[in-house]
């Protein structure tokens, strides 16, 4: 959070290559992004400095948004008909100081073109005097059980928690800050199943590909702690379980922001201190959020590759509904006397051998026992030029080695046909909080997804987050 946005001039990005990308499309240049908020049909996030980023779909981001007040590392939360925006002015070690004020303001919309747009200043809700062991920056909201909490602070001393009035955004009268962590900054808060989660970064920021920022977490039954990690180490003694570290071409994740999309689907925003594909600039990033044993863990968009797509309901493999072709084999070899010579490997069934019985027209799909056959192996490839959804480009899903693509028809059927790039052949693949995936067509309406409606039958029907019928795993073939 230490930089001002002016330090990050925007650069256009060359077209993304057709490989799996953690990176978002557009010009997602930002440092210290807030939680992403949805307002008037668009997604907004604000960063250090005055502006922010805006997106229609959560995949392609452009500079935009208006946030007066300057300062660093804002956060946003919507409560009722108000968007509260909190930010810090001063501190952060800039100019050698740690005196800072955390300020709140609100607006009824984040869309500057709306007649309802306009910020109303609430005032200072927390501060540090420059001497005490706290630097009041990097504020983060949590609205849980009707109460509004705010964490703030940096490596300079303690992370602190205060309570605000959710109806006004003001500090609760008489509320005193509580120390909840050390050696952490860029905190964020979540509430789930009776646990309060305090997340924040460890490591070094603001040094491009040498930044060691990584996001950590502790939890408590109480919003004011004590927060401990998975080893029971208090965050007040430096603890923190890893949520996400740098990976691939993205270095130094920080400034976690929860994106709850409903239907058991959560993602999180962050910045990478350095996107190596974008000259090392700090960029917005979005990743699936998983929960394992009560702890949040960074998930992954499905990577380009060839997979068996396995139903969590029946274990059946998604496949072309075609005649089974035997692999030539003399079963007596399996049960005969031990061979005296070396054993020769058997070849896999070839695509040509399997295809020999396929009809040339559309072929429906079903679920079958996985027999490691070509008609059960799917190549999954991002299609970034076709747009995307929150945190990911659309994918095409074709039988490996062919152009036969999984296709959603206008009347809600799922079949396969030659890939044309039509919307019915573009798929949204979201990792769910348990690590499995939901597969839904771009043309989906009413949360329709690929669902095992029988042990061996698939259809495009409404996704139910409470059972396994709509959950899939991508397994190496």
């Amino acid at each position, binding site marked *: 959070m*230490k*930089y001002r946005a002016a330090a990050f001039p925007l650069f256009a990005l060359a077209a993304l290559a057709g490989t799996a990308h953690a990176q978002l499309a557009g010009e997602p240049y930002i440092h210290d992004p807030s939680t992403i908020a949805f307002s008037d049909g668009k997604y907004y996030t604000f960063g250090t400095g005055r502006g922010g980023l805006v997106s229609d779909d959560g995949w392609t981001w452009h500079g935009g948004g208006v946030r007066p007040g300057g300062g660093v590392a804002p956060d946003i939360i919507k409560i009722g008909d108000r968007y509260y925006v909190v930010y810090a002015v001063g501190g952060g*070690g*800039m*100019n*050698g*100081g*740690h*005196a800072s004020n955390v300020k709140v303001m609100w607006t009824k919309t984040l869309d500057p073109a709306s007649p309802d747009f306009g910020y109303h200043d609430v005032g200072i809700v927390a501060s540090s*005097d*420059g*001497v005490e*062991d706290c630097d009041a920056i990097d504020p983060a909201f949590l609205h849980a059980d009707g109460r509004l909490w705010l964490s703030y602070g*940096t*490596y*300079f*001393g303690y992370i602190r928690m205060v309570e605000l009035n959710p109806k006004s955004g003001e500090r609760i009268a008489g509320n005193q800050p509580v120390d909840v962590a*050390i*050696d952490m*900054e860029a905190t964020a808060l979540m509430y789930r199943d009776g646990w309060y989660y305090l997340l924040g970064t*460890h*490591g*070094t*920021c*603001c*040094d*491009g590909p*040498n*930044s*060691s920022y990584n996001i950590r977490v502790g939890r408590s039954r109480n919003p004011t702690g004590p927060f401990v990690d998975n080893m029971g*180490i208090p965050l007040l*003694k*430096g*603890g*923190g379980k890893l949520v996400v570290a740098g990976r691939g071409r993205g270095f130094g994740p920080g400034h976690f922001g929860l994106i709850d999309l409903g239907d058991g689907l959560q993602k999180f925003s962050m910045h990478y201190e350095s996107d190596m594909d974008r000259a090392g600039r700090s960029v917005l990033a979005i990743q699936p959020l998983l929960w394992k044993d009560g702890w949040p863990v960074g998930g992954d968009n499905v990577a380009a590759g060839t997979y068996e797509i396995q139903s969590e309901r029946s274990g059946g493999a998604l496949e072309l509904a075609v005649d089974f072709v035997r692999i030539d084999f003399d079963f007596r070899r399996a049960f005969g006397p031990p061979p005296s010579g070396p054993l020769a490997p058997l070849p896999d069934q070839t695509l040509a051998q399997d295809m020999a019985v396929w009809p040339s027209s559309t072929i429906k799909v079903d679920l079958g026992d996985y027999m490691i056959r070509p008609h059960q192996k799917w190549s999954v490839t991002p299609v970034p030029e076709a747009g995307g959804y929150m945190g990911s480009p659309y994918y095409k899903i074709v039988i490996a080695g062919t152009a036969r693509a999984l296709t959603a028809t206008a009347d809600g059927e799922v079949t396969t046909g030659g890939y044309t790039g039509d919307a019915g052949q573009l798929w949204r693949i979201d990792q769910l909080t348990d690590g499995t995936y939901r597969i839904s067509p771009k043309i989906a309406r009413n949360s329709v997804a690929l669902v095992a409606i029988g042990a061996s039958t698939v259809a495009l029907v409404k996704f139910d987050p409470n059972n396994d019928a709509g959950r899939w795993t991508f397994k190496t073939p």
Partner: protein
Amino acid sequence: MGKMSPLLVACLAFPALAAGGSPPLQGLSPFFEPATSAPKAPDADGFVQRWLLLEPIIKPNRSNAGFTGSYVRTALTTEYFRGQFSVVPHDGDRVAGTAPLQWHALDSKLFDVKLFNFAQGLNKPTYGVIFWAVTVVDSPRTMTDVRLAVGSNSASMWWVNGKEAVGLFGDRRMVMDDVVSPPLTLHKGRNVIRGAVINGPGLSDFCVRFVDADGKPVRDIAITIG
């Protein structure tokens, strides 16, 4: 620790370049109190809170990113004052260096020893420094297979009875039990623990305790530097 880039650190490590005045001093009292002559037990988690701390030695570093093992080992095994690796000082002792530096016998009020606040409270440099710390652990019996567990901000090295026990290299932040030594022996009677912490910009502190073979804190020891 210093978690910022060299660009930003430039104005942190050299306050003369920065805008704004120095904050008013708090002194040592928020974080320390004078050590007494009475033995002091570790805290409930086994952390050693009584130390002789030497006023900071100037060692400019604009970033902590350069605290590689080789750099830290060289920096912390260089002799800055006579008796650096052998003497158990007393409160008020002075050492001759580029500037006279004084030892302070202090009890930390917290589980960790806040070196930044120690330096700030004495109106000494807080960034670009090396801190030396010494304490004496009085063990009631010979204890084998104990381990020294250290967290420090930033890098540090630690010796037990003159033998190197652990090194914490890189741009460290402090977490309890960050680096744990191989099994070692605490002799019956006096055992000298010596450490040095190097820091560029940012806060600096350390926490030290002994743990037994089961990872439980060793508490039946006394700290007797008085």
